[in-house]
């Protein structure tokens, strides 16, 4: 990919943002490539140092709050005709519950995902606490001279603590995974917003 192609693709990917913002970013990356070339790199090397267009676009979008993108999208739409407003109001009993239901479904899916994570954490800690708590029966067995039973209980306790530590590592990884997924989905939604707007402009 040469500089021109890189900048064109970047422009396309950011098309949903305000035009001056897009131009400024594109010229920023253009200048960056020129300066790298002047410093002795080939155009290819300069571009590969910056990264893929996709990664640059993802980076830009993750910096911009989702709210700002949605607001911008709503703002750039043309004014509604009177009959459209009437239709929207009359149709409210139909589309409003559907919209709320859809939002609720998405929200509940997300919440249940976290619920799984929370319950995994709880289970890990419960096993760990059980392990620690087993000290009490072990002590009782010990005081009653039931050495074999005491040793068996202590063995179980150690196993429980070990399993719990193992589970906690798993939980930490699962939590990180869900966080990463959240970020990816957010960037995905932003990309959808930006892209959709681009197709709107083409229709106009």
């Amino acid at each position: 990919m040469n500089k021109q192609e890189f900048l064109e693709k970047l422009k396309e990917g950011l098309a949903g943002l305000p035009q001056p913002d897009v131009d400024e970013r594109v010229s920023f990356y253009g200048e960056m490539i020129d300066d790298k070339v002047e410093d002795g790199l080939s155009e290819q090397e300069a571009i590969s140092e910056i990264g893929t267009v996709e990664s640059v676009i993802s980076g830009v979008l993750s910096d911009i709050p989702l709210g700002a993108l949605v607001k911008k999208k709503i703002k750039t739409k043309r004014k509604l005709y009177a009959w459209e407003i009437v239709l929207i109001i009359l149709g409210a009993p139909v589309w409003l519950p559907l919209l709320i239901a859809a939002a609720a479904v998405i929200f509940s899916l997300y919440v249940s995902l976290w619920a799984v994570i929370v319950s995994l954490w709880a289970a890990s800690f419960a096993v760990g606490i059980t392990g620690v708590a087993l000290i009490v029966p072990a002590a009782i067995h010990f005081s009653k001279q039931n050495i074999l039973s005491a040793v068996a209980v202590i063995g179980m306790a150690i196993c429980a603590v070990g399993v719990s530590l193992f589970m906690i590592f798993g939980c930490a990884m699962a939590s990180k995974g869900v966080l990463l997924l959240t970020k990816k989905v957010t960037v995905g939604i932003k990309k959808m917003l930006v892209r959709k707007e681009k197709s709107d402009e083409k229709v106009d």
Partner: protein
Amino acid sequence: MDIQLKRGLLDVCVLAAIRSCDSYGYKIIKDMKPYIELSESTLYTILKRLEAANMLTVRTAEHDGRLRKYYHITEGGIRRIADFKEDWKEILSIYRFVTREDDDNE
């Protein structure tokens, strides 16, 4: 380095890179490279933020038949660096507190 900590340092590093003379994007990254890594998109965000906070100004000048943006530090930017130095004294004393026992053990 911790991401949060790095984020706070980068603003001051960019200001330091343009303190002695005006500089441009590529040179800022290059000057900072031995000390702290910075991607192009991060630099863009930082420059925008610093410009909005009146810590630097931007001018476009011709270079070799093309345009290049130069960044100039303002009074506000210089003050930001001074504040950072003050903060750092405090952080150093906290660092000494944190590592106090390490020194005793050695």
